[in-house]
């Protein structure tokens, strides 16, 4: 038997998730931090992939890494542009990150091969720049055009649309 590290429930070998508390037992889940009410007061990052119109809203608990998933090296970025819009391999595995530092939110290029552009200007690698809350930013990651915005006041809808 294997024991759930969170709630100590016993499971058979090859069980992937604890059915009592939801903990990933296989090391497969990207994020195993328990979501609790504190998250409701954290800022959110909205990402729009311009070519496909796909939008994502992610809680900015500490940082969000944008990149390209690579099963060979086990790299699993929070936002995988490999499936979400990159046609070639223009996006590096760990390309850029959006990070909370105190009360500010920063964007940083992580030394990517093809660069990160913010409002038409290339970001110097490893040189974080602050993002203003509520403002829409044009960001190019490799060849993928995104619109990013950080929101703290306006919440995503949490009720069924009426």
């Amino acid at each position, binding site marked *: *038997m294997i024991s759930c590290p969170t709630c100590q429930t016993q499971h*058979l070998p090859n069980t*992937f*998730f604890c*059915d009592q*508390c939801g903990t990933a037992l296989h090391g*497969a889940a990207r994020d195993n931090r328990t979501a*609790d009410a504190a998250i409701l007061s954290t800022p959110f990052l909205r990402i729009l992939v311009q070519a496909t119109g796909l939008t994502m809203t992610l809680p900015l608990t500490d940082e969000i890494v944008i990149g390209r998933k690579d099963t060979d090296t086990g790299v699993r970025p929070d936002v995988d542009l490999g499936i979400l819009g990159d046609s070639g391999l223009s996006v590096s595995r760990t390309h850029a990150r959006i990070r909370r530092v105190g009360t500010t939110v920063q964007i940083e290029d992580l030394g990517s091969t093809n660069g990160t552009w913010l409002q038409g200007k290339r970001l110097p690698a490893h040189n974080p720049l602050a993002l203003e809350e509520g403002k829409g930013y044009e960001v190019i990651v490799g060849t993928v055009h995104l619109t990013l915005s950080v929101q703290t006041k306006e919440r*995503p809808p949490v009720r*069924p649309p009426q």
Partner: protein
Amino acid sequence: MERFSPDYYHRLGLHDGADEKQIRAAYRLLARRYHPDAAHNSTMATAKSERFLAIQEAYEILSNADRHADYDRWLASLPPDKRLTVQIHQTLGPISLATLHEPQAATLLLDMRVDSALRPKHLPLNLCLVIDRSSSMRGPRLSQVRRATKEIVDQLEPDDVFSLITFSDRATVILPSHRNLRKEVAKSLIEAIEASGGTEIYQGLQEGMNQVMRYHEADTLSHLILLTDGHTYGDAEQCLNLAEQAGNRHIAITSLGIGTDWNDQFLDSLARASHGTASYIAGPTQVIESFQNQMDRLRAIAGRGATLSLTPAPKTTVRDAYLVSPEVDALSMVENQIPLGGLSFNHPTVVLLELVIDPLPASVQELLRWTLEVDMAPLTRRREQISREVLVDVRNQDFPLETPEVVISAQSRLTAYKLRSQAWRDMEQGQPMQACKRLQAVATRLFDLHETELALATLHEAEHVKNTGTLTRDRGKWIKYGTRRLALPAPGDVP
């Protein structure tokens, strides 16, 4: 071009068009299992060598790039009634098992897809709408239902059968079952539906069944859609019996609840008893969209009465069966038979089986055999029967074992569904603090699946449960049906 026997993929236990890697992996397992040298006596050796030769022949064709391509072209040139119309891809996670002194779990995914070459045809419908017209439906709800029903009438083909029942304290047949509906007359009758009275679902359901039975023939797709906004009074048991009879006759019931006052458990049981689905309409503005979804869904049904039969090997126990696409739901399994209802052109039907495997020695072992039976008439005028074995390599190895991503993804979605169901049971048992923790765990899984909106709603619900000890009526239902639609994303091709 070379002449082929049509079943090389099948001999290797694969779906048509499997790739090189899948072909090699399947061949390795089969060759080890059926090699005549591995037999215990001469009768077994003869049986094994025949099977072995068949496997060998298939592999020789499929492992040679030119012959493989020729064979694929030949398969594609066959008319649909000469080839398999359902392709089934099986994935076991982990890929191989370890020799252990204790039981271990394994997950089997069966991904079933209907040949899209059959698509231009569709089954004639035998559809009955059973609509709640109790006084609480008055206003925008009923006016939207009238509009949505008229839109369905507009989409009927001459060979479709349609009937319409309304109910309050009693049932009224607005339109009896008929082919070649006179649409203008039908629409004026629909316009005249007014709200009044209580909600007695059984009356409506029974009259609906009567109408459907009049045209319940082999080559039509019989279906009943029930829409209600409230609780039924005192006849729930009768309704469930009727739904079960409907299920036995391959008449599925879709139950749609509108607003927040309907009894979700009752509508779920009703749908499940008939192998249909239950769904949620948040408000009047969503009625048309929801009816249209149901119509699209029915139009896309290709195979009817699909049933999966399992024959587990002595060391295998099938613990549970779930549907993980087109939505996540528990499946009923009686004596290793799992009714699946219809198979659709629009999306794969993916079944997840949770297996428990008792200790096995190091070798290639059979875990299970399964058979899918599905009625493909009148699209191809036959009943399809597909049967396969699930083999696995058991060897000395360390954990964690290699597991395909698709299995983990399916298990992640299933975990969100199970935890959500468990939270509702915690509430029934008067354990709100347990339910709150469980909902936080659901939210964790949802964030991981990038279902942020649903995750946030779930967290708000957890807070509400913690503060008040109750579930909200509207958001609670939204989360329940939201975690159900967390089906595996459907890739364009067979994975």
